[in-house]
C-alpha cells in the first residue's frame, strides 16, 4: 500500500458526487453486462437474499405444520416443503453466500487487484447461478420435489412422483457456478497479488476463501456427475444405482457425500474467514497465531475430503471402512478447534468493542462451538448409530450452518456494509436484531438436540404426541428467528437510501479495503498498491506468549 493512513487516495472526505462503482454507470444493461466484481457481488447479494427468504418461508411453513403431532398440512406438502427448503438453502444460499458476495467483493481489493483474474467468467458464474435457480424454482412452481436435498437413489431415480429432474438440473447448473467462483479465487490469489502482498500477509479471509475454492474445484464436479448419472437413470428407468440390475444405491451416497461433506466446509470456511477479520478489527489486534489459523483452513480443506463415510455408518458400509472414516472425522475437528481457541485468545490484552459485527462474532463462536462439539457425537460410531436420521442431526448441522455460517454472513455483511454501500446502518436496531436472532436461533434448535436423542426422526410430517412440547418450543423459536432476519432487511434497505455516509474506514480497521474510498471506484485502486506491512497491523508486535 502506497500509504497507510486512511483516505489518502483521492480526497480524504467523501464528496457527495464522488464517482464510485455504484454510480459510475446507470441502467439495467450496465448491471446485467457488468464485469466489475463489486457489481457482480451485488447482483449475487440480491439473488441469494431472495433465495434465502424463499427457503426461509418454507421453513416457517413446515415449522407451523409441526405445531400439531398429526401435522397441519398433508404429508405431500410437508415433504415438498422440507425438500425445497434444503435444496434452496444449501445449493442456492449457503454455498454461494459468502464466497459469491463478500469474497467476490473483497478478495480483489484485499490482494490489491483491480478485479478477479477472470471478470467475464465471474459474470458467467452469476448467470449460471440464475439459470440453475430458475430450473429449481420451476420445480417449486410446478409443485416441488419431495426427495430431500440429498436426492437418495432409488427413491429419487425411480419412486418419486415429483419434479426431480428439474430440481436436480438446477443443482447441476448451480454447481458449475460454484466451480467457476472457486477457480476464479484460486487463480486470483495466485496471480493477482499486489507487489509485497506475500502469502504470509494475506488476510485470513483470503486464506479461508482460497481453501474454499480448492474444495469447490475438487468436490463439485463429483456432485455434478452424480446428479447427471441420477438424471440419466430417471430418464432411462435403469441405471447404475438401480438394485434391480444389481446396482448399489449406497454407491450414490458415496459419490454424493464425496462432494456434500466437503460442501459443509464450503459453507463454513468463508464464515470462519469473516470471523477472523471481525475479531481482529474489534479487538484492535493481530489475530492470535496467524499461521495456525491460516494453515488450519488448508488442513480443513484437505481433511474434509476423507471423512464423508461418517454419513453412512448405518447404511451397511463396511465396518472397517466405517472405523477409518470415524477416525478421520475426529481428525478434522482439530483444525476447527484451533480456530476457535485462536479467536478467543485474540481478545486477550486487546481493546474490545461491542459493535454489531462483534456481537455476531460472539454468536458465531458460541454456536459454532456447540455445533462442532455435537459433531463429535456423530463421528463416534456408537452414538452415531443412536442419533443418525434424527433431529439430533438436524440440530447439529443447523448449529453449524445457521448458528455458524449465517451468523458469520450477517456479521460480515454488517462489517463491510459501509464499504459496499458507503452508508451506515442504525447501530441500535442492528444490535437488537443480533440479539433477537441469537435467542430465536437457540430456542429453535436446542430443543431439537433433545428430540433427537429421544429418537424423533427427521423428515416426519407427523410425530408421536410426547414430542409436542419440544416441537412447539422449536416453532416458537423459529418465528422469533424469522422476525430477527426481517429486521436487517428493513434497515439495510433504509440505509441504502438514507443511511449516513460511512467514510472510508468507519471501524478503524486495517487492510487494503479500508484504505480506499467507500464505495470503491470501479478499478478499486488509482494505482496498484505496494504492500509493506503485515496483515492486521494494529501496532508493533510487543509480546510473544509462551
Amino acid at each position, binding site marked *: 500500500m502506497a500509504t497507510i493512513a486512511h483516505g489518502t487516495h483521492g480526497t480524504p472526505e467523501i464528496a457527495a458526487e464522488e464517482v464510485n462503482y455504484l454510480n459510475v454507470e446507470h441502467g439495467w444493461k450496465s448491471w446485467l453486462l457488468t464485469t466489475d466484481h463489486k457489481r457482480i457481488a451485488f447482483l449475487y447479494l440480491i439473488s441469494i437474499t431472495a433465495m434465502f427468504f424463499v427457503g426461509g418461508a418454507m421453513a416457517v411453513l413446515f415449522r407451523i405444520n409441526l405445531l400439531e403431532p398429526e401435522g397441519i398440512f398433508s404429508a405431500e406438502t410437508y415433504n415438498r416443503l422440507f425438500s425445497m427448503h434444503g435444496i434452496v438453502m444449501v445449493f442456492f444460499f449457503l454455498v454461494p453466500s459468502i464466497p459469491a458476495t463478500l469474497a467476490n467483493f473483497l478478495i480483489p481489493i484485499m490482494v490489491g487487484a483491480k478485479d478477479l483474474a*477472470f471478470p467475464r467468467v465471474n459474470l458467467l458464474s452469476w448467470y449460471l447461478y440464475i439459470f440453475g435457480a430458475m430450473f429449481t424454482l420451476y420445480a417449486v412452481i410446478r409443485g416441488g420435489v419431495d426427495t430431500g436435498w440429498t436426492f437418495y437413489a432409488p427413491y429419487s431415480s425411480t419412486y418419486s412422483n415429483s419434479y426431480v429432474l428439474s430440481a436436480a438440473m438446477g443443482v447441476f447448473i448451480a454447481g458449475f457456478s460454484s466451480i467457476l467462483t472457486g*477457480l*476464479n479465487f*484460486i487463480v486470483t490469489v495466485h496471480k493477482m497479488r499486489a507487489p509485497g502482498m506475500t502469502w504470509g500477509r494475506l488476510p485470513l479471509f483470503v486464506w479461508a476463501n482460497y481453501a474454499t475454492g480448492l474444495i469447490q474445484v*475438487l468436490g463439485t*464436479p463429483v456432485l455434478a456427475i452424480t446428479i447427471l448419472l441420477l438424471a*440419466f437413470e430417471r430418464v*432411462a428407468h435403469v441405471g447404475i444405482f438401480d438394485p434391480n*440390475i*444389481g446396482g448399489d444405491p449406497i454407491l450414490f451416497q458415496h459419490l454424493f457425500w464425496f462432494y456434500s461433506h466437503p460442501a459443509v466446509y464450503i459453507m463454513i470456511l468463508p464464515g470462519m474467514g469473516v470471523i477472523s477479520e471481525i475479531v481482529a478489527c474489534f479487538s484492535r489486534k493481530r489475530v492470535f497465531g496467524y499461521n495456525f489459523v491460516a494453515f488450519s483452513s488448508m488442513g480443513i480443506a484437505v481433511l474434509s475430503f476423507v471423512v464423508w463415510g461418517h454419513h453412512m455408518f448405518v447404511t451397511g458400509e463396511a465396518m472397517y471402512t466405517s472405523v477409518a472414516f470415524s477416525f478421520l472425522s475426529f481428525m478434522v475437528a482439530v483444525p476447527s478447534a484451533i480456530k476457535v481457541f485462536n479467536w478467543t485468545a485474540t481478545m486477550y490484552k486487546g481493546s474490545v468493542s461491542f459493535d454489531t459485527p462483534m456481537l455476531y462474532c460472539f454468536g458465531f463462536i458460541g454456536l459454532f462451538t456447540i455445533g462442532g462439539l455435537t459433531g463429535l457425537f456423530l463421528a463416534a460410531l456408537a452414538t452415531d448409530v443412536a442419533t443418525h436420521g434424527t433431529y439430533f442431526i438436524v440440530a447439529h448441522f443447523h448449529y453449524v450452518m445457521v448458528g455458524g455460517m449465517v451468523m458469520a454472513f450477517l456479521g460480515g455483511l454488517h462489517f463491510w456494509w459501509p464499504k459496499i454501500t458507503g452508508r451506515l446502518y442504525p447501530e441500535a436496531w442492528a444490535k437488537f436484531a443480533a440479539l433477537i436472532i441469537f435467542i430465536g436461533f437457540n430456542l429453535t434448535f436446542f430443543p431439537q438436540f433433545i428430540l433427537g436423542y429421544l429418537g424423533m426422526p427427521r423428515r416426519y410430517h407427523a410425530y408421536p404426541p410426547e414430542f409436542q412440547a419440544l416441537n412447539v418450543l422449536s416453532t416458537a423459536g423459529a418465528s422469533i428467528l424469522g422476525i430477527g432476519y426481517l429486521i436487517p432487511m428493513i434497515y439495510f434497505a433504509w440505509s441504502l437510501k438514507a443511511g449516513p455516509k460511512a467514510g472510508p474506514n468507519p471501524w478503524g480497521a486495517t487492510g487494503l479495503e479500508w484504505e480506499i474510498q467507500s464505495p470503491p471506484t470501479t478499478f478499486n485502486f488509482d494505482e496498484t498498491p505496494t504492500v509493506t506491512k503485515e496483515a492486521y497491523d494494529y501496532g508493533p508486535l510487543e509480546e510473544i506468549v509462551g
Partner: protein
Amino acid sequence: MDASMLGMWTFLITEVLFFGGMFAAYAVYRNMYPGAFASTSKFMDVILGGTNTAVLICSSLTMVLAVRAAQLSKRRDVMLFTVLTMIFGTAFLVIKAFEYHSKWVEHLIPGFDFQYDEPRYQHNAQILFFLYFCMTGMHAVHMIVGLGLLTYLLVQAKRNVFSANYFAPVEMIGLYWHFVDVVWIFLFPLLYLIGHRR
C-alpha cells in the same frame, strides 16, 4: 505462467474429478461383477476402438504442432494443423457414431429394449453398458465442445491474432484437447479390453 494457463489447469482438475465419479463407479462394479463385465467384451469392437485411439493420438500430435506453429508465429501452419486436428476429431466422432448405431441395432442400450444373449448377465451387463454410454457420451460431449473451440481458434488464426507474443488461447485449447485425449486413453482399455478374447 500467466493466469489463464493456471485457470485452465484448475479447470482440468475439475474435469478429472468429473470423470472420476464414473471411474469410481466403474471400479466398484467391475469388482462386483467381473463375469458380466468380461462378457461384454465380445460386443466391443476393438478394431474401431483402437482406430479411434490412434485417431485421437494423431489429433493430439497435430494439436501440439498447431501450438508450436503459434509460438513460431507461423499463421498458415496454425490454420493447417488446427484443420487437421478438427478432421481427426470429426473422424473420431463419426466412428463413435457407427459404434453407437451398432449398439442400438444389437439392443445394447440400457432402458431401450435391452437384450443380452447371455441371460445370466442380462441384469449386470446393463451396468457396464450404462457406464459405457455415460463415459463415452460425456467424452464425446467434450470432443464436440473441443471442436467448437477449435473452430474459434481457426477464425482467430485467420484474423492473424496469434503470434510468438500472444498464443495463450492456442495453448489453452491445446491443453483441453490433450486432456480429452488422456481420458480416452483410459477409457479404451477399461471399456474395450475388459475380457480375455478367445
